[in-house]
């Protein structure tokens, strides 16, 4: 009998003891996700987080598709075919509302990416750097800053007045620089355009310092940021700020003084002899400074109604792989007689039908579903043209190097045309030629809107869509309705 008594007293004691340990059970460790605290606990987790930042940037709502598409369809070179609000017919018509798909989703995805970068930078500073070591840590933080800068710059192009309007004094964006992981940080007013640009430049400067010169593979040299990427982006940003001397300073770091123009340090970025090679597998030429890679792995392609080839190529029966959302404007840049039929870049144009059903389509992107064309973020030819334009504008002369740079881009696709200083009557003529070259060279690469904006030019009419001057409603987008409803300090445009 006694033994049972002892036994049960023992059991009671043991269970009470055990009970006190049970509270450990309540610290959950999810197995499909990791808690934010442990996201920086090992090098491989940190590396996965870096890739996640690019993954966010590559999202179909941002650089995987729609950011680039909106940049072109706001301009005059495309005609909407489907009147579908989901695929940006309102963006094309320059009248999207605060709650338009484009306005709401691009804003959300860009800020999601920005917050991911902020959380990453915070996490590295809080302990991740110690695990990654000084070199890798500097590299990774620099990548995060570059992505953050690119997002802020991109948002400015649609949601804020151009820098040229009042030298950046107009309302810019809520500038969020620390990671948000919970509730209670809703309200933040918009900083000025100048302040946001200043942050973009600061981030890119930091990135330039922290990024590696290059990677071991051509693949990574195109899909991950290296030092030249930061410099190249700075030429774009400074051009938008009309800070032409800074464009020259930056561009000179990666453009040799004479032709053939190449980057002399870091990745040997250069033009390809044949532009069509840039838009083909493996998409990783040295001309593509940064592109968003796509594969047919689930989650690694742009997703429904975000894909460039889906928007720009016609349906299969017409020889395309997409849905023909937008055709090329027959009266747009493709009508320009100086863009010769022999120009290699005309090979990106597909003509279908005849008579009233005659249409032109852009086939620069042509990989079929799930649409694995790499999406260009910045190419070396843009750096050359940025430099060319900055040189002309800063000197207001027919700058010979500017002509040489323009020639480098034109000649490689159009052997029949060679510009000389004598081709241009004035500096302004040269600038116009450079701007026209940009429309031809970057058709479908999302730069048209930025070029119109930075020069405060009127967005020309096209098809049924009316033109919008800098003072018209619709010249820039309104702010996302969701932001306005929930961020009490945010004001609309």
């Amino acid at each position, binding site marked *: 009998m006694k033994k049972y008594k002892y036994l049960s007293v023992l059991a009671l004691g043991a269970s009470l003891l055990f009970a006190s340990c049970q509270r450990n059970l*309540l610290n959950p460790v999810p197995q499909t996700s990791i808690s934010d605290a442990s996201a920086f606990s090992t090098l491989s987790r940190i590396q996965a987080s870096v*890739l996640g930042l*690019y993954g966010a940037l590559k999202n179909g709502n941002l650089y995987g598709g729609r950011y680039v598409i909106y940049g072109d369809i706001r301009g005059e070179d495309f005609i909407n075919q489907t009147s579908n609000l989901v695929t940006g017919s309102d963006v094309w018509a320059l009248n999207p509302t605060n709650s338009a798909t484009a306005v709401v989703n691009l804003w959300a995805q860009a800020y999601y990416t*920005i917050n991911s970068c902020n959380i990453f930078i915070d996490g590295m500073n809080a302990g991740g750097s110690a695990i990654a070591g000084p070199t890798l840590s500097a590299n990774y933080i620099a990548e995060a800053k570059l992505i953050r800068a690119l997002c802020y710059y991109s948002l400015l192009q649609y949601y804020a007045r151009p820098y040229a309007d009042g030298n950046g004094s107009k309302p810019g964006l809520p500038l969020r620089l620390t990671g948000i992981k919970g509730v209670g940080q809703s*309200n933040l007013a918009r900083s000025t355009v100048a302040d946001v640009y200043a942050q973009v430049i600061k981030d890119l400067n930091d990135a330039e310092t922290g990024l590696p010169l290059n990677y071991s593979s051509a693949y990574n040299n195109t899909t991950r940021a290296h030092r030249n990427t930061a410099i190249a982006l700075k030429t774009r940003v400074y051009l938008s700020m009309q800070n032409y001397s800074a464009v020259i300073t930056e561009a000179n770091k990666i453009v040799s003084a004479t032709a053939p123009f190449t980057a002399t340090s870091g990745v040997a970025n250069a033009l390809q002899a044949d532009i069509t090679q840039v838009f083909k597998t493996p998409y990783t030429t040295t001309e593509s400074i940064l592109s968003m890679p796509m594969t047919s*792995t689930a989650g690694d392609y742009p997703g429904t109604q975000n894909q460039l080839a889906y928007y720009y190529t016609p349906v299969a029966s017409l020889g395309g792989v997409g849905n023909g959302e937008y055709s090329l404007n027959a009266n747009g840049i493709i009508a320009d007689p100086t863009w010769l039929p022999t120009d290699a870049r005309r090979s990106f144009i597909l003509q279908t039908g005849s008579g009233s059903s005659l249409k032109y389509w852009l086939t620069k992107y042509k990989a079929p579903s799930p649409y694995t064309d790499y999406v260009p973020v910045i190419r070396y030819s843009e750096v050359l043209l940025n430099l060319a334009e900055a040189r002309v504008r800063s000197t207001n002369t027919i700058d010979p190097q500017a002509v040489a740079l323009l020639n480098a881009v034109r000649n490689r696709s159009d052997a029949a045309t060679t510009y000389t200083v004598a081709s241009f009557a004035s500096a302004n003529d040269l600038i116009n030629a450079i701007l026209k070259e940009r429309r031809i060279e970057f058709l479908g690469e999302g730069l048209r809107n930025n070029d119109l904006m930075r020069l405060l030019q009127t967005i020309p009419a096209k098809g049924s869509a009316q033109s919008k001057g800098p003072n018209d409603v619709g010249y820039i987008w309104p702010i996302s309705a969701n932001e306005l409803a929930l961020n009490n300090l945010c004001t609309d445009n």
Partner: protein
Amino acid sequence: MRKLLMLLMCALLTVGQLWAQNRTIHGTVLDENGKPIERASVVVKGTKIGTSTEENGTFKLTVPPTAKYLVITALNFERREVFIEGKNEVEIKMNPLDSKLDEVVVVAYGTQKKNTVTGSQVSVKGAVVENKPFTSVDKALQGAVAGLQSAAASGAPGSSQAIRIRGIGSISASADPLWVIDGIPVNSGDVSRLTTTANLLSTLNPDDIEDITVLKDAASSSIYGSRAANGVILVTTKKGRPGATRFKFDAEVGQNSIAYKNSAYQPLTADQYGTITKEGLINAGQATPSNVDAIYNANFLSVFTYPSPVNTDWLSAVTRVGGQQQYNLSASGGNEKTTFFLSGGMFKQDGTTIATDFTRINGNARIENRATNKLTLGFTLNGGVTDQNTPLNGGAFGNPVLSAFFLLPTLSPYKPDGTLNYLTGDFPNASTYNTVAVAALDKRNLHGLSLRGSVYAEYKILDNLRFKTQYGVDYNTLEENQYNNPFYGDGQSSGGRAFAYYTRYTNWDWVNTLDFKQSLLRSGDLNLNLKVGYESQLSKGYFVSVQNSNFPPTTILTVPAIGATPKTASQTASDYAFVGAFSSADLNFKDKYIITGSFRNDGSSRFGLNRRYGNFWSIGGRWNIDRERFMQNIKFINQLVLRSSYGTNGNAGIGNYDALPLYGYGSNYIGNPGSAPSQAGNIDLTWEINKPFNVGLDVTILKNRVSFTIEYYKRNTTSLLLAAPVPPSTGFTSVTKNIGAMENKGVEFTLNVVPIQSRDFRWNLNFNIAANQNRITALVNNQDILSGVFIRRVGYDFQTYYARIYAGVDPANGDPLWYTDATKQATTNNYGAAQRALYQSASPKFFGGFGNSFRFKNFSFSANFYYNFGNYLRDTWGSYYNGAGFGGGFNKVQRIMKRWTTPGQITDIPKYVYGGNKSAQSFSTFYLFKGDFIRLRDIELGYDMPKSLLGKYHIGTMRFYVRGTNLWTWVADSNMPFDPEQGVSAQTNLEVFIPKTVTAGVNISF
């Protein structure tokens, strides 16, 4: 060797001689009203020889010649000793314990004297749920408990069943009650990930259940803390009683057919479809009277030229009369030291639709040993395996019920040569499939396995202090398999495909309790019962998913390993834990005034760091008025009790990791895994808080012939979890927060009457009703939430429809009309110009059950009804088969023949226009139906074989019966398209039809 044999023979002879000297006593144990008492213990005084009584109160006991007295004990009755010398047959009448003073009921973490219970709880005896043709016990609870709504969304065998106790108490978290089986909180509900429905409770054989107790208010359930808000259902399985081993065998066979059909919703015949389609083509301007026949013949007929025109009734083709059978065998008994209960069962149900069936095989063991006077040890193990085939539902092309209404009657499931017809000319790819072919060629099945078991020990430290520890495990696995052939159907585009999903839930729970009883006054008038306990639980979910495609051109090889192209190979996991310390106490003064209280400090891994633990409590009071001196002269009142309770409990039914700020993988880049913030955390996230108030009156009058209970409750649920939007510039779109609030209040009434009671005839009548009113009282910024066809608005019922109000058909031109707004002042034929209005609710205003049972000599008859009133049901897919021509290429139902055809005609079906008539297909109140119904849930006629006959064959009892389930259904709305029972949200989804079942069976015990 020879010696041994001799010895054996001697032994045998001796035994034989002993037998010869014994005698057998037959007897019946009855209550004060002459009603048989089941499971009364019958023991020969001073020995361990004993047995227990059958369902009909009879027993048979072989007693030694020395036996003089039998001792009979039964729950809630006084102990009796009966002199038996010289008697072979006895009838024993038991006296109930004084005013049921010592009757004991199941409560949370133990049992309690019934007359000290302050809470609202209802016990359903095992006899109510056993031997019913239901695949799981939750289906058998329909109509049995006032305030418990049990609604099937599907009639598929083995499907899940939604249970709501006292209304819906949550918006985004779970509204399901907590199931506790033999003291272990278990995982329950639908855990299917691939197939359409799988019910974890379907592995439990209702035949093994002794008692189901439903806890409805704070006093009864708050001790379960953060999981009690939606109510708690305690299941106690059967255990053995001391006495001779008793066997029980049940067998039942029968058949299932569709319970409810409406002739207005039968598919059209080929001729009818031809008539209406030609008319519609002309109305749509797609044909003229002169060319319509040619157009019709070219586009709407089979590619085969049959000898005679095809006229397929697809509804008949995909439905059937299914078989039903179950067999249960149990053995129970033991002696005063050790008791046992063993059982096994087999259950098989074929559904009303092709490719639906369910089979369960299960076993159950329970052994309890009193090691010493102080120590009791026990062990339970309950295991079941299920095998289930369930087709697709809703709008899936492979859904047989969908195809019954969508496929053209001009197409035949078979080719003229008798082989399956799936030529693209008749059945184009990516459209409604010939589901007869799909059922023959594809596979969709699941195998479930559940093991629920526990070991426990109870030690009486002092006479008034007991310690109990119980460790239980609830282990469930589900293997789901799907194969889609490469030739036709869902697998065609991927060259055939197969899925294999494995789901496992391992759940352990450890409870330790200390029970203390103490009399606080020397007189014994004031008594305290105190319980303290500690419970910890960990549930781990484990999920493997595999998909492969590109299969060889055969339908024989169906496992994923055969596919050439791997598609998915994934494994995930999800866990939760609860740790709680709890206590309950009741203070009883002279059995007149009782105060109870409970408290639990509960912690859950699901909640944010700052709010991981919470305190939940309840207080309750009970006044046994009938015990008062002033009541002693009021003879016609046997019992009069006033009860009330109030307290708090919680709802922890949220995602396992909702509170955590998370990094998720899947943000892939360059083919490598990328991680990114996937969830904004909320370290303040916590349970939803429920504060139930309850007051009840229990009355028993007229010599216990009439008893009723009336209760009023009001429960306020606050801190409802809602996704609160945050500005997108924070990087997230929403954060889960405790914001919303809701209120449920209502009245419940339960009545039991014995109108006639005599030796040969007894009539029992029961009735229950529950009326509940639900109101949302707070939302995020009190803004409306649109959720499909519902609107969540402050001040309104949770399931209020938000719909344009249909105004009928314009007699002039057959256009559909809608009221422009809720005032119903003006109509429009422009759907877009009509405003949506708040309209009725999908939740019933009141529901309940009523029944009669009669016993005349050896015959018994019972009929139980379930009813449901005040809700509206939506016909989700009605736009296709009753949408004025919308989806013209699909078949229609008979009701469409009442369409408008001539000016001046009054009808509610618009002019039939091929392709649709002015958005008549769009959701409006036209697709809502008054959901009132009454259903004959159960009707049974039984006959007990006379004992005199059975005795010869050593059979205790033998009973034959025929039973019907869902045999008759009355609906208020003559246009009710499908079964009026369509889940808690009352949305039809072309699910497998709920069956009506007719069975015949036998119960034998010996």
